[in-house]
């Protein structure tokens, strides 16, 4: 395992998780690992370019907001069961991207 997971303690309780990575990942590798059904886009936040992946009504991932950090946010619409499945899928994809 080369990441650490923290639940975001603020108001979106239970929805947002922060993943700290021990080395950077290539966004392309993560895209391949998470799968083609998750849409990728990017936004410019100040001086940073943020890569965003969205599985509609299930989850959103943000890479590049902070160095060596990835944010994973469940959507309100996702059921508890779906959230478990999605987070597992996300962590698997992250592990794959970290190995490349």
């Amino acid at each position, binding site marked *: 395992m080369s990441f650490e997971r923290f639940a975001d303690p603020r108001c979106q309780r239970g929805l947002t998780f922060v993943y700290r990575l021990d080395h950077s990942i290539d966004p392309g590798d993560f895209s391949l690992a998470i799968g083609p059904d998750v849409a990728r886009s990017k936004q410019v936040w100040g001086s940073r370019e943020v890569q965003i992946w969205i599985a509609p009504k299930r989850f959103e991932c943000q890479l590049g907001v*902070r160095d060596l950090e990835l944010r994973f946010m469940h959507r309100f619409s996702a059921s508890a069961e779906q959230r478990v499945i999605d987070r597992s899928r996300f962590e698997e994809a992250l592990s794959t991207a970290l190995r490349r």
Partner: protein
Amino acid sequence: MSKLKGQVQEQGFGRRSLGGEPLVYHCNFYNYWLQKTVLLVDDLGMEEIIQDAAAASAFACLKGLSGQDSAQAEALFAYLGFGQIDLSEVTAAGGHATTSVSHYGQCLSSAAGVPFAKPQSRFDAGFAAGAGAWAHGRLASGFGASIQACMSVGAEQGKVGLKGRVQPDFMQTYGMGPASTDARPPNTWAAVDQAAVDQAVQALHLVGNEEGLIPRFGVMLTQHFAHFYNRLSFEFLRRMSHTGMRMAGEHLLIDAGYRCAFHTFGGIFNSAEWEALMGSKVASREAGAHSMASIVSALGWGRWRLVEISDRRAVLRLYDDYESLGYQAMYGAASRPVAFLAAGGLGGLMNLLYLGDVLDKPVLDNDYFERVFEHPDAFAVHQTKSIAMGDAYSEIVADR
């Protein structure tokens, strides 16, 4: 989900409008606390005001946009961050609307911290009434709305019943209202380029996602109708005045602003978005205050400028603050200042920075709130000038 036809217009002093209606960003915490505040006194009749203010705002905004159909109204609800609403079962005679995702139905619980005993989705009910009325050619007051199910009290989805009604006297929105004066906000801190901050905030694309929600800055944002907030605040105050409790009403509205500051500003200071936007500019409390003022100035609240700041005192000037402009447009000249949200916001900002060391990223829990906001040496705020009273700008002093 249909795409909204129409776009937000950026106007002077950071003011923003859609369909001719001014918009301001606020989060789930302020939405919770303002609603809770105006409903504190049972017999003021504020439930009806909440729904009617939502109906009037939605109706006016849709009227200002192109397209007289339910799809446009559904897209508007989502675009502004209120969730997803289905108006397909509404006809000119009435019917019902459902919400599968709702800011008011689902996102206020994290602000309250406890389960709700009563439905929180009065805004949704009003929106459904106003939007349904617009889509089916009725007057803005054309539907009465009743909450039949609400996710805030455990329903799987929200449901609003609509029934035709005739109500000749109905509140009007005021559109963008008057611009204040030709006074120019001073540049108070060289490190902040307001135009660049405006641009950076715009680039965050703070509009509803595919669920119709805006989860950013560690909170759930809404792009809300300024008319809605102003109508709630000032009608609450007017009704409190009639019972001889105006001062208590003012204090309660300022307190809602304090709580907004704690959660919204606290959340922003702690957020990844803040770090990305402000980077290394925020090396001191004073820099933090100026930077937050510049962010706030990009949220439709008017321009915030701190013309004086120290660990004992701050002076904030507001140019085109939405509260003062809204009051003036709705009621004419004010006899007392009316920038309650801003006053509470300034006090909260100063307490967060100078008592709460918020730049060190503390955990923003209830213990922290009590320690900071109930500190014996906390900042107190005084409104010293008001656009609503004819001044060139509104001014608030925080000191201790």
